[in-house]
C-alpha cells in the first residue's frame, strides 16, 4: 500500500430528501487505507457541513453507515477507496428500501417496530445455566448481527414488493432463530413466524446472505431451519402427534 499517491477521486453523492434530490459531485484527495466513509467525512468537513450521514464506530461494529456504493449495498466504513479503479466515479446513495430522511440517512424506524413484536427470551425458571459451547455455536453466529439492515435492504419482498406491512425480513428471522435455538429458551414463536412474520414469503434467493458484513449464513442457518420448523408444526400433523406421544418438547 503506497503512503500517498496524490490521487483524487470523484464522489457522486445523493443530496436531498425523499421527494426531491440529485447527485452532487465532489473531488476528494485519496490517502492510503481510506474508506468511502472517510471521503464522506472529508466532504462534510471541507465542502458541506450539512451533508447528512449516519456513522458511529468506523470499524464495522455498529452497523450505522449502510449505503449503496456504486449500486452495491455496503457499509461505507468497509468500502475501501482503493477498490475502485483510477478515474472511476464513486456513486454513493442511501439504501433504497427505507424512506430517505435526508441525503444518505434513511428512516429505519420500521425495523425497531418489528423487533418489539418478537416474543422475548423466555428461559425455564428452573434452568441451572450450565450451557456447553457446542450447544450455543449456532446462536452465537446469529448474535453477531450488527443491525446494519443491509439484509432488509436487499430482500426483494421488502425492496421490490414493499411488504413491510406483512413481512419481518431476514434480520428478524435471524433474531428469532437466535432465540428459538437458545438451549434454554422455552417460548414458541412458530405461529408468529407463520402468520405475522410471514416467513413463507421468503423464497430463499440468498440475497441477504450475500450482503451480510458479518458473514452470517442467514438463509442456510437461520431461515431454512425456521421454515422447516414451521412446516413441522403446522403442516405435518403426524409428526407432531408422534412427537407429542414421545414426549418430545420444543425442538432445539
Amino acid at each position, binding site marked *: 500500500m503506497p503512503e500517498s499517491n496524490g490521487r483524487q477521486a470523484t464522489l457522486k453523492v445523493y443530496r436531498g430528501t425523499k421527494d426531491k434530490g440529485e447527485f452532487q459531485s465532489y473531488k476528494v484527495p485519496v490517502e492510503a487505507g481510506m474508506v468511502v466513509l472517510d471521503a464522506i467525512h472529508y466532504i462534510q468537513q471541507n465542502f458541506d457541513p450539512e451533508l447528512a450521514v449516519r456513522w458511529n464506530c468506523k*470499524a464495522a461494529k455498529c452497523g450505522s453507515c449502510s449505503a449503496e456504493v456504486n449500486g452495491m449495498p455496503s457499509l461505507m466504513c468497509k468500502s475501501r477507496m482503493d477498490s475502485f479503479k483510477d478515474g472511476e466515479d464513486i456513486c454513493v446513495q442511501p439504501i433504497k428500501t427505507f424512506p430517505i430522511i435526508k441525503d444518505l440517512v434513511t428512516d429505519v424506524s420500521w425495523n425497531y417496530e418489528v423487533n418489539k413484536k418478537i416474543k422475548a427470551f423466555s428461559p425455564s425458571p428452573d434452568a441451572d445455566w450450565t450451557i456447553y459451547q457446542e450447544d450455543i455455536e449456532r446462536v452465537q453466529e446469529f448474535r453477531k448481527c450488527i443491525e446494519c439492515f443491509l439484509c432488509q435492504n436487499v430482500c426483494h419482498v421488502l425492496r421490490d414488493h414493499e411488504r413491510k406491512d406483512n413481512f419481518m425480513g431476514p434480520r428478524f428471522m435471524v433474531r428469532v432463530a437466535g432465540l428459538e435455538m437458545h438451549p434454554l429458551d422455552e417460548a414458541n414463536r412458530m405461529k408468529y413466524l407463520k402468520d405475522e412474520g410471514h416467513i413463507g414469503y421468503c423464497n430463499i434467493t440468498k440475497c441477504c446472505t450475500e450482503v451480510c458484513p458479518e458473514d452470517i449464513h442467514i438463509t442456510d442457518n437461520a431461515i431454512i431451519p425456521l421454515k422447516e420448523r414451521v412446516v413441522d408444526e403446522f403442516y405435518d400433523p403426524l409428526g407432531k402427534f408422534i412427537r407429542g406421544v414421545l414426549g418430545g418438547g420444543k425442538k432445539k
Partner: protein
Amino acid sequence: MSEYEIREHDVLVIGAGGAGLRAAIEVSGQGVSVGLVCKSLLGKAHTVMAEGGVAAALANVDPMDGWQTHFKDTMNGGKQLNNWRMAQLHAQEAPDRVKELERWGAVFDRTKDGKILQRAFGGHTWKRLCHVGDRTGLEMIRTLQDRGVHQGIEVYMECTITKLIKDGDKIAGAFGYYREDGRYILFKTKAIVLATGGTGKAYTVTSNSWEYTGDGQGLAYDAGAELIDMEFIQFHPTGMVWPPGVRGILVTEGVRGEGGILRNSLGERFMFKYLPEATRNDYAADEAEAVTWVNAALAGTRTEARRPPELSTRDNVARAIYTEVKEGRGSPHGGVFLDISYQDSERVKKKLPSMYHQFKDLADVDITAGPMEVGPTMHYTMGGIRVDAETQMSRVPGLFAAGECSGGMHGANRLGGNSLSDLVVFGKRAGAGAVEYVKGITSEPKIDDKFVKEAIAEMEAPFLLKDGKNPYDVHKELNKIMSTYVGIFREEAELATGVAKLEELKAEVEKAGAKGTKAFNPGWHMCRDLKNMMICSEAIARSALSRHESRGAHSRLDYPNTEKAWGTKNSACSKGPDGKMVLEHTPLPEMPAELQDLFVKKEPANA
C-alpha cells in the same frame, strides 16, 4: 418563537449505552415512568465497540478469585485514587450483574464444564473477563436493548439534549432537539440520569465515535455539578496506526490476554523492562515463564507460572510503546509490533474474529500470518461527574450519572474489562437512586419558561451568524491543542500553553456557524458539541497542569514520581459564579481499616 413538543417522565435517562439502558431497565422495572434519550439509533452507542470482556470475579476459570482480589486489582490499577466505596461495590456486584445479563439472553463463551468462560487481561490477578469472542459489547448492548424494549421503555432515538433545567437547585427538565427534522423537545422530569460516555473526540487520534463529545459532563457542569479527576485520560496502548484512514481504531487488549506479544523493531520483547518495581513480582521473569503461562491458558490448565509482561496495566504499556517509538525502535509506521500469529490460526480467528477481519479488510494484514502494528490511542476518560457511591447522585439534587461520564470508580487508570462491569453495576444503582429520589419528592418541580427561551436562543444562534466559521475547522483546532499540549507525557510549559490556547479558542467556538435547514444537519450539531468538548478539555488541561506528580495515566516529565501527598487529593472543576472554571483539590474519601488490610496481607481470604 419556535414551537416545541413537551413530554413528561418521572425519570429521564440520557444516553443509551450499557449504563443508560441498565438504568432505564431499573427504573421501568420498579414501575416508574422513564424516557430514554439517545443521540444515535438505539443499539449503536459506544458500548457496541467494547471488545475484550466484562470483568467479574465469578472464579469460573481461576477458583482463587473473589471480590476482594478484584477490588484490590482495581485500586492498584487506579493507583489508589479511586473512590474506594465505588470500587468495592463494583467488585462485589459485578458477578450478579453478569449473571443477570445471561438470564436476559446474553450468550457468553463457555468453559469446558459449561460455565461462563473468563480470559486474562491487564492488571487482573486472575482470569476474570467474561466475553463473547471479541464482540462482548455488542452482546451486552443487544441483550439490554431487547430487555428494555420488551419492558416497554419509551425510547427517543436521534435526540440530543442541549440543556438541563432546574427549579431552584433541583432538576426539573431537559431541553433538546430531534436530529431528523430539528424540531425542539422539552422533557419535564423529576430526575435525570446522565449516561453519555466520554470525550475522546477532543483528541485527534481516538478509538471513540462521533458521539463522544463529553455531553453529560458539559451539561452537568453547567447545571452546577463537579467534574473530578479529569486529568486522567486513558490512552489505550494498542490502536491501529496504519493505514492513516484507520489510525486510532481499537485493537482489543484481548489480543494480549490471549497471549499476544509486543516487540520493537529490534525484535526485543520490550515490556519486560517497563514493569514497575511495585508489581514486577506479579509478572513472568523471562520469556520461558511467559510461554509456560500462555500454554497453560490455551490448554485450560492451572500453572504456577506468572502472566506475561504485556498484561501490565494500560497506562504502563502505553508509555512503554510511546517511549520505544520515540527512542527510534518503532515499526515502519510509528508503532510497535503486536504478534499473535505464532498461535494456531483457526483458534485466533475463533477468539479474535473482529480483529482478524478488521486487519484483513482495512489494512491488508493477516494477523494469523504476521504481526500487527499498534500504537496508543485516546480511549477513555477516568474522570467525570462526581457522584455519591451508593446512589450515583451528583451534588445537584435529582441529577445522577453512571458509566464513563461519571468519575471516581477508576481513579488514575482503569483496568480493561472494568468499564463494561461499571456500566451495569452503576447503571442499575443510578436507576435505583433516581427512583428513590423521585419517590421522596414532595412537590412537582416547575419549569420557568425563560430557561426554555434561553435554550432555544442558544440553538438558533449558529444560524444567525453572518460568515460563521466552519465548526469542523474549530474542532480540528481543538484536536490539535489537546493532542499537542495535553497528550500522554505532559509538562508545565506545554500544559500552560494548552490552557491559554483553549482560552483563545472559546471565542472561535462562539463564531462557529450553521447553514441550511435544521433537518439532519451535522454542522449545526457540531456547533453544540463543541461547547461540551471545550468544557471537558479545559477541565482536563487545568487539572493536568495542577497535579504536580505522575500517577496512573497522568505522566508528568517534570514531576516523574508518584507523590504520597497527592494520593489523598481529587482535582475538582466546577463553574464559578462568574462563569469561569474553578479548580479545587478536595480530600479523597478514606478507605476503612478492614479494606486497607487487604493491601497488607499477601493473600486475601476470598469469600
